[in-house]
């Protein structure tokens, strides 16, 4: 599939994560935009209408779960697929995020190549 021109929004308060994802996804031809908290994630989602959002669970200000709910409650952003990438590995957290509308959930530590593949698959599915 063609990935060029697809925009991925990455929201994580850890700059190491955003840099890693920006490099990995960027080198696969995606256009990556990174933000460091939940409020900025919501704002950027509206402004950029990304093709997919890769979202951290715990972020200062507005956590990932609240970001999912905010985006899913709004018709303009409800269709953006969300891949949750969180260090929370409890059943409650995973099921809660998927129930709230996340399309996929990966637990840190993760396999970067797996993330790339899942992102591609989500893009295929949402086309």
């Amino acid at each position, binding site marked *: 599939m063609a990935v060029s021109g697809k925009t991925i929004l990455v929201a994580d*308060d850890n700059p190491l994560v955003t840099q890693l994802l920006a490099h990995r996804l960027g080198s696969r031809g995606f256009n990556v935009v990174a933000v460091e908290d939940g409020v900025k994630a919501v704002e950027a989602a509206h402004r950029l209408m990304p093709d997919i959002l890769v979202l951290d669970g715990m972020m200062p200000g507005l956590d990932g779960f*609240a970001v999912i*709910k905010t985006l899913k409650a709004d018709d303009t952003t409800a269709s953006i697929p969300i891949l949750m990438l969180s260090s929370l590995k409890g059943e409650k957290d995973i099921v809660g995020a998927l129930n709230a509308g996340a399309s996929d959930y990966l637990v840190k530590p993760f396999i970067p190549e797996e993330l790339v593949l899942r992102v591609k698959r989500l893009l295929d599915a949402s086309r």
Partner: protein
Amino acid sequence: MTDLTLFSIVMVLVEPVSWAVIASGLAQNAIYTIQLLLAYRHLARRSHFEAADNLWRQYAEVAPPISLLVPAYNEQATIVESVRSLLALRYPHFEVIVINDGSKDGTLDALITGFDLRPTRRSWDQAVPHQAVHGIYGNPAFPSLLVVDKDNGGKADALNAGINISRMPLFCAVDADSVLESDALLRCVEPFVDAPEETIAVGGTIRLANGCTVADGQVVRVGLPTTLLPLFQTMEYLRAFLMGRLAWSEMRAVTLISGAFGIFRRDAAIDVNGYRHDTVGEDFEIIVKLHRAMIAAKRPYAVRFVPEPVCWTEAPSSLAVLRRQRVRWQRGALETFFRHRTMALSPRYGRIGLLGFGHMLIVDVLGPPIEALGYILLPSLWLVGLLDSAYPLAFFALTCVFGIFISVSSLILEELELRRFPRARDLAILFVIAVLENFGYRQINTLWRIEGWWRFLRGTRGQWGVMTRQGFTPRPADPPSNRLD
């Protein structure tokens, strides 16, 4: 009474009073010196090393669940954002319980709309007394948020309701308007992890948000206030937390955990029947009560204090509001001191009775009147020519210089351990403040403390036990021109 007898009475009094003033000053300075040394020792021997990801690695798996209790009274404008940022704290397992204490504005409606809440029912423990609860609200989409609506009863009453409704072994009492560091719970839970059987309460360092840049409920850049009054308070908070409370922690005699942020073991708080309603210093009272109960039951226990700043609060920037706050603090201290006066200097209550209450006696109970007496007496004696000006002046200079020395030492502690102020020139500004506060700010504080004494005396006679039907924190009368909103 003739002029002559009045004169001789004054003459007889002059010497003892002068000595009392000097002795009290020396005692206070001695206390500060000892505290300073203890604080240094505490920081030097501290054994945990605090990189944020390290904390998560070490504590995420073992950290016990915590209920955050957030009493809210007339917080319509900010409550939703505050709760949002509380829900975003970095901690593996916690719930947020907002207690709407009969607000007269739309606090409850703001919460209901903001989080799409619906009435729910929940089984809860009737462990401590409080005003009637009208309803509990929740939303399955926010499983860790609960809003409780109850009759007005003051902050203590709201916290008691929260204690009953919470289901976690620990609870954390926070003010709705304070800003927490996202690692606040993780940092302060350490004593509960290391000694879960003994630790009953842990306090964290409070810093002033004035002058800091706050965005989305987070302090993103630490800065100094730009006006004088909050700057004085910044210096005060630095001293009080970095030196004062660290020293108490080192002596294992912490007697005050700020109402703005403190973690407690729920069962311990229930054993002492929760917070007291009939005092303006409920945060102080509960700690004293916990000490008292634990010592009486001969149980090994610990009340601890964590030096890292975890909570940011907006300081009053007007004299009127600051005065109200200080008068209230003084009154609260006196209420607790006299309610538990049997503990004072009693060997049965060990370090708390001796050190904690001894300190209170010198600094809170006797300190203000004696200091005021000094300020009135010595200059007037000099005016009527009974006293050589050299001595009062020398003592005043010594007191000032000593105060500055203590402030500088606190700044050294801050620099060695925390280094939160971003610029080197902040240190210089704080040094100037440490000098300036001796001329005016210090004296006006003594005046307010005297007013607190007066209110306490009137309060005990007239309206003892009458419930205060007002908000907990003095709200700025004028719209605050800060960057919190």
